[in-house]
């Protein structure tokens, strides 16, 4: 097999939409879990290999409760890929990412009526695939703020908007944002902005020592970066297929 690459260094990371199954747990959760087990018993493997989104908009639950719920689902081999309708205070860096902008699709029929409410929706669409008008009427950009350092081995994934980190991003840690990334600390790991296809996204950090940076799928490894920027406050943006950098004073 031959591979032709115009530039060995530019890889595009593309957006793609999948149909996700949305689970909407209802209080009391213990009863709901029993119903879920019942459903699983009747249609074994229903959740296997399907992207599952957890809708907690109507659920009164705190971060600890949500962690437990995700664990309980995990024990039943239901892997949650994203959480919908949660407030930032309910989610932590080790949880599946918050998702927004899902569009309803037809309900999935799971044979019997006692089954918990399960419906199918579109997972968030990549920016680029949306009609222009829709993008323009979109409400304010979503953002999350993380008040602690991102440690090695942790990843923060926030496809729907900007990520601000008050602290450093360690070597071996990563931040992936649909929008821009702001790091008030040293960027030692990876930062990938505009990850669903957004060439306007930027990366800002107080001190640049990154292992990898990417904007809209164009990436640069540490060794490809201009050493003049090393250790300095920098912003990075995209012009065409080239990542530009500039020091901030």
């Amino acid at each position, binding site marked *: 097999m031959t591979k032709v690459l115009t530039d060995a260094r530019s890889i595009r990371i593309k957006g793609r939409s999948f149909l996700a199954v949305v689970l909407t747990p209802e209080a009391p959760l213990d009863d709901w879990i029993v119903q879920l087990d019942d459903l699983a018993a009747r249609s074994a493997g229903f959740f296997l290999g399907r992207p599952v989104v957890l809708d907690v908009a109507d659920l009164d639950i705190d971060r600890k409760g949500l962690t437990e719920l995700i664990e309980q689902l995990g024990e039943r081999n239901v892997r949650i890929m994203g959480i919908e309708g949660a407030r930032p205070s309910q989610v932590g860096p080790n949880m599946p990412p918050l998702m927004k902008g899902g569009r309803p699709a037809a309900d999935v029929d799971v044979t019997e009526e006692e089954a918990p409410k399960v419906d199918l929706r579109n997972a968030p669409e990549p920016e680029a695939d949306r009609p222009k008008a829709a993008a323009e009427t979109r409400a304010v950009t979503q953002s999350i703020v993380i008040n602690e350092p991102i440690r090695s*081995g942790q990843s923060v994934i926030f496809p729907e908007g900007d990520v601000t980190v008050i602290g450093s991003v360690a070597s071996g840690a990563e931040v992936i944002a649909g929008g821009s990334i702001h790091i008030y600390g040293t960027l030692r790991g990876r930062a990938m902005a505009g990850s669903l296809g957004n060439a306007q996204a930027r990366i800002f950090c107080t001190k640049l020592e990154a292992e990898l940076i990417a904007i809209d799928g164009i990436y640069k490894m540490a060794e490809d970066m201009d050493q003049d920027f090393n250790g300095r406050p920098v912003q990075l943006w995209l012009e065409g297929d080239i990542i530009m950098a500039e020091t901030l004073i």
Partner: protein
Amino acid sequence: MGKVIVVTSGKGGVGKTTSTAALGAALAQRGEKVAVVDFDVGLRNLDLVMGAERRVVYDIVNVIQGDAKLPQALIRDKRLENLFLLPASQTRDKDALTPEGVEIVMNDLKRYFDWIVCDSPAGIERGATLAMRHADVAVVVTNPEVSSVRDSDRIIGLLDAKTAKAERGERIEKHLLLTRYDAVRAERGDMLKVEDVLDILSIPLIGIIPESTDVLRASNLGSPVTLADARSAPAMAYFDAVRRLTGEPLPITIPGEKRGIFGKIFGRKAA
């Protein structure tokens, strides 16, 4: 109720077992009632460093499985009557430790002791996560070297996510103990600078333990270095670390340098 300290690092060979013994003994030398607990099931070492290997009858796995009562498994130190060791099992693997069993043992220990110092195995798997599970305080043992620092960073992330305290929404107290610090190699620039390690890990520093043959000599004698030679440089660094651990704002000097780095370290925001 006693306080639980976990001595942890991610990486092996950095000085966890040495530090568990030295910190445990140093606390006991101040008159506190202390238990040191070996969580390194299958690769136990703490009994050797404490000089108790010939007195091990029962171990933590026996207690968890109900074959022995806690007081039967605890070994009293020959030098200090208020220092005890709960050994690990050498013949079992770490799956013999169950979360429920560990919780019961830790709750019992907290009733009898002022301090429980847990020696964590290397790695980020079950043994290490069980050792940190019930800790109130973590001592993160790090060598001034990149792989050790990165592993410590990973462990700090786990401390903030996987401990019982973190799951209750509380913060586990984390302290950095820089060990095997070689002033000569630091001078040559062969090691990470103290400041760089602090900058990366951003947790408060409780001590810098110099690389020293006194440590080897003590462990060959089967004695924590603070008991073997209380005047030696590593012993004094461990005594000071204990004072900082208990809240004393003692200035820190880098071995081989006269300048104190007190201001710099304590001015930093602790994560």
